[in-house]
């Protein structure tokens, strides 16, 4: 017995997945576990996936534009691009953090030095 591809079921699952992803991101922001500025990319791609699951022709049009015969391949491409940008975004965040971290370590070292000198001076008084 051969079952035809169930387009409707697939659409529901895709829809459910995208809505869940968006709600999950919102919930993380609401609980202060994810900062707004780091959530924008996730929300952006979440909305794109929601759009693609609602508007099935979108995928078809997209694969035509980039010249892919097999529409799901276009979906994978979209996913990989999304991951790529999110990872790149993290590299930027890590770089910023490490720069600030360096400054904090330097200032801490200098402050500890001042403290040491002050203690010495107090002892001598």
């Amino acid at each position, binding site marked *: 017995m051969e079952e035809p591809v169930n387009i409707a079921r697939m659409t529901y699952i895709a829809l459910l997945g995208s809505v869940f992803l968006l709600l999950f991101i919102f919930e993380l922001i609401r609980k202060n576990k994810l900062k707004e500025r780091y959530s924008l990319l996730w929300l952006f791609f979440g909305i794109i996936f929601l759009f693609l699951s609602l508007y099935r022709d979108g995928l078809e049009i997209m694969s035509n534009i980039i010249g892919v015969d097999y529409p799901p391949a276009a979906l994978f491409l979209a996913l990989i691009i999304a991951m790529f940008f999110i990872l790149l975004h993290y590299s930027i965040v890590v770089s910023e953090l490490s720069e600030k971290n*360096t400054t904090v*370590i*330097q*200032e*801490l*070292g*200098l402050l*500890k*030095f001042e403290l040491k000198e002050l203690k010495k001076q107090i002892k001598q008084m």
Partner: protein
Amino acid sequence: MIPMKILSIIPAYNESANIENVLKDLYNQNIEFDVLVVNDGSVDKTGEVAEASGKAYVVNLPCNLGIGGGVQTGFKFAKQKNYDIAFQFDGDGQHKASEIKIILEPIIKNQADVVIGSRFLMKNSGFQSTFSRRIGIKIFEMVNSILIKQKITDNTSGLRAYNKKAIGFLSDFYPLDYPEPEAVILLGKNGFRIVEVPVMMQERKGGRSSISGFGSVYYMIKVLLAIFVNYLRPRIVKE
């Protein structure tokens, strides 16, 4: 003339075997300067040994930042305490304290903002590093010399002196990781007067170099990338 306030910045990471001799060597020079040891998160007794010598200020960083972050801490210290001149002197025993006068002179005479002590300006001037390292150093010489239109023979030398203007600039913008070749581009590009003077160096007496093996390939690629990027960035200091 008001005597100039001079600071010696000694970055030290796990150099407890060398630091005492380095400090002694510095102390025996007949030039007036303060000594600052930046203990870059060492896991050995570098900080205690330096402190116990009583010859130096010691700033202990809570984590290891790498040589650039350590030296920059020294620039920040020099800026805060209003030093006129700062010079870097490595804590591993490869720099000779007798050469300090030579690198300070162009700054004192206001002929330069930055002075680099070069091993390669004189033939047979002591230890000149291993063959493979000299290839790397030659590449830096070619690249940097083209980019800043001034021949710099020893881009990796850590024996350097800076005037007040350079101290202020570098306390904000000193490159991290492996800073020496990058700093040359950064300073040249921002209009600082760089002068090289011939010095002698010695082979390190103990401890380990921060660059070796596979690390040296990574080092070359990373530094060359940083040099090009620094070259392409806009000037920070406006005329």
